[in-house]
């Protein structure tokens, strides 16, 4: 029991024997197949794998956006399985951050309001010094009053990153955050994510198709048909590419 608790404390998120299938009968698709994965605190984890391998599904299950058919999912010391809608919503607001590929922002709010939205929903005031630090880090100090329609795609993604970081969540999940951006804007986002891991000890899980992006991570896990098939530590772009090729065959 004691040992169990200890292992859990060291982890930001954990999937344990998770199975998830869509549809029923002959048309059933097993998106996740008895998959277990640990996410260490303060680590930048990349998830890779071919299209349809279950990356997004895994991320949604880890983040409490989707339910699993069997197995358990933990965020920090909280077990998600069995948490009600209200519990999940509160968890997503306070302990999980999101960056999607696109449409991350509310068009009616300014950049600043978008960044502070999760705190505002919880009726919390952001810590001003921390807010300034985050805004400084994403380089948006002079864009705070702008509406999303007045920002470039890269700037919008940076606003989304700042929003994810501000509540100091246990984990930030990013699903192809650079997928819609040119390489320069993409690099800015990846640098920022890397920096938040190093300077603020933030835990990040990122889904990507890009070997260059994966190279920013501390660790890359590879999925195939809903199973974890390979893992790399401190990867560089080349090894990642090689692994992808070997998995494709």
């Amino acid at each position, binding site marked *: 029991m004691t040992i169990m608790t200890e292992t859990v404390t060291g982890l930001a998120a954990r999937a344990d024997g998770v199975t998830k299938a869509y549809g029923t009968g002959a048309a059933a698709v097993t998106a996740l197949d008895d998959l277990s994965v640990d996410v260490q605190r303060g680590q930048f984890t990349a998830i890779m794998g071919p299209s349809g391998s279950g990356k997004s599904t895994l991320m*949604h299950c880890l983040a409490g956006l989707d339910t699993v058919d069997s197995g358990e999912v933990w965020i920090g010391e909280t077990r998600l399985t069995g948490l009600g809608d*209200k519990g999940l919503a509160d968890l*997503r607001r306070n302990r999980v951050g999101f960056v*999607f590929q696109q*449409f991350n922002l509310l068009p009616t709010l300014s950049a600043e309001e978008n960044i502070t939205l999760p705190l505002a*929903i*919880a009726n919390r005031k952001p810590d001003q010094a921390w807010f300034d630090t985050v805004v400084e880090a994403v380089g948006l100090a002079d864009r705070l009053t702008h509406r999303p329609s007045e920002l470039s795609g890269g700037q919008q993604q940076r606003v989304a990153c700042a929003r994810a970081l501000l509540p100091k969540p246990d984990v930030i999940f990013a699903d192809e955050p650079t997928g819609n951006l040119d390489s320069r804007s993409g690099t800015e986002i990846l640098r920022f994510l890397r920096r938040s891991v190093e300077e603020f000890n933030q835990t990040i899980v990122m889904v990507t198709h890009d070997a260059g992006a994966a190279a920013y991570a501390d660790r890359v896990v590879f999925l195939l048909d809903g199973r974890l098939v390979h893992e790399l530590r401190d990867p560089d772009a080349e090894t990642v590419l090689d692994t992808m090729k070997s998995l494709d065959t």
Partner: protein
Amino acid sequence: MLKATLKGLLARKTRLVLAGLAVVLGVTAVSAAMVTTATIGDGFETIFATTTSEVDVSVSAEPNGGAATFAPPVPASVVDELRGVRGAESVAGVVSADGARPVGPDGKVISVQGPPRLGVAWAGETGMARLREGRGPTAPDEVAINAGLAELGGFRVGGTIDVLTLEPRQTFRVVGVYGYSNGLGTLGGSTEVAFTEPVAQRLMLGAPDVYSSVTLTAADGVSPEALRDEVTRLLGDGFAVRTGDELAAQTASDGRAFLDIVRIVLLAFSGLSLLVGIFLILNTFSILVAQRTGELALVAALGARRRQIVGSVLVEAVLVGVLASAVGVGLGIAVSTGLKSVMEAQSGAQLPVGLVVPMPDLLVAFGVGVLVTLVAALVPAVRASRVPPVAAMRASAAEQRSLTGITVAGAVPATIGVAGIAAAVAGWAGDLEFVALGGGVALALIGLALLTPLASRVLLPAVGRLLSWSTPGKLGRLNAARNPRRTAITVATLVVTLGLVGGVGVVAESLRVDVSTAVATDLQADLVISGDGVSARAGGQTGGPPTAADGRVMPAFEESVIDRARDLDGVALATAQYVDTVEIDGAAPGPSPANAGDLSRLAPVLGLDPGLPDLGRNEVVLDTETLAEQGLSVGGTVRLSTPRGGWQEYRIVASYEPNFLLRGPVLSPETAKERFVSALPALGYVELEPGADVAGVKAAVSDLVADNPEVTVADQTQLAADSAGRLDLAEIMLYVLLGLSVVIGILGIINTMALSIMERTRELGLLRAIGMRRSHMVHMVVAESLVMSVFGGLLGLTFGGLAGAAFVSVAGLAELAVPWLSLAVFLGLAVAAGLLAALAPSARAARVNVLAAIAYE
């Protein structure tokens, strides 16, 4: 392209249903009004045609004043004279007059809305009457009654019935119940009491040996027209001689005065519904097309021509319009069937015809429905086809349009309208003040509609702050402010409805205050004996002359009541006032309220100059306003036509200042007894001795009129409240009608909200993903709906209130009274409407599936 359109139609069922619903509602309202009016109109005509089917020629005395006064009876000698006319097979004197008021089992006079309460002379089973039970009356204390009355009051053969006529309440034995040859128990809802002929002459016409009219049937081979001409030649001037057909047309058109009121009310309602329906349809389609701007742009990018795009939207609109209008017409017919039975139940009338479906009118309603749908769809479609494909593919292209054009377009009518109102209030418009006011209000309303988008930009944040203290609330408020045009058109219905309500509320309240103040200052009496509506007619405030539709003989009581009241302990003074309507001949000939009484006693009670003389037989006192209006002066003479006296010349002996309770010619009581419709007084005033016990004397006076079910004894406050209360009914009716348009307004908000939420699925998913609870989502949507409805409500009430205040000022009412409580209630209703409208959309928003929404493109 057509195939693609049809596929698209089926794929968007929810939206189509919402759009169709708007059309259905509008068309239903209009066609229901048309069918109901046609049905009632036809019913009336049929009744009068059958009533006179066995009459070839009818003779009555020419009304002795204009059309407004009562035609004097025809002496029996005329009947004898006509017996000798060539070509007549039969000649009969008829007694039939309105004013036989039966007392119901609850001790109150049986009241029917609209149709007359006739007292007739029994002439056997001639004409249309057919005995169902018992026999006709043969003794002075016997009556037969029609089956309609028997049913209303639960009267039976062998029982008794109390009837008030020109004479006070009398009890009769019911010896017969009769129906009519068309099988019905009442003609158009009227009640009938049949007396023996001498009794009917005395009670209904006020004199022996007179008839209300004489009817003749033509001998074989003689046409009604020939007989009519023969009778006219014989009798000379002073008589109205008409064939049965002419008479039917005449009576039917009299009856139609009542129908006209119904028609106006129904048409006003359907016009309002149509207007509101147009808003709803317009809004729905502009949202639908806006949502598809991206899709349309894609089609355009793929090479479709602009004409094809607009064409596809049009095909959709035609299909929706035709289907929904057809459903609307069908529902309209169903609704009028319901309305018909309600009206039958209400008036006791059994319309002898089935539902009349006026095909041409319904085609118009159908066409209007289709046309409005087409225009509503075409405008946004043309706009969408002009958006460059690239811009359209960007999410919020439709929301960014500038408001400059619409603001300028609205500022012009708004400025002219306000100028018109200002001119009317300031009195620069002279005699045209009401035209300036009405035109000004209409223009200002158009201006307001066009300026609402701008106003929403300025006011929504303010209104929103009041309602949105939390973050979900703030998000809702921002959503409401997102598209000012859409918000404006969504709240348009509420603005119009609450504008009307607010205006009417202010005017009605001011009138009430005005009336009660007037009663309180003009009336010195401590107690007033009167029936419903009498005091109003005495002062000419409403109602005017008794018309065919109004047709009521005023509640009256015996003169001896006053003499006995005078003898009661604690009574200082008691006096009677006779009330009627006469025709006056002068510079502005027409009907006028007329009164009679002992001036020496009335003067102190009504606050008149004490020096007024008691009047002789052909003397009159006139109020200063009437003198000025008619170009008359004291010392001269005036010609007046009284209902039973006809035209006579009176000497003007003095004048008085008119007030709420007295206006027009005042005659001597003796003249009234002889020449007014009713020889009985309609108002009695009692002044108490100082220190007398008001409640005790009131009870004693009440005892004196205990056997009269039509009159009551009121103290001053009751009288003021009664007078003011006359406005209530009209006001309530208006509110009920407007309530229906509020329902449509709520549907409009639901529609907009539902469509907006579909449009924002992606955002809703995002909000859920970053941690909004379901309750937060509900809160957000409710806030959006509330902000819109409160904004619309405030805008409407403010506009209506100001317009009402302008009316009060132009009409010269004593005081502007604002019914804050009612206004608050109406605003509360707007809030309730907002809550109601948010129910379904907020549930939908709370149920948004996060993953599906995120995957949604």
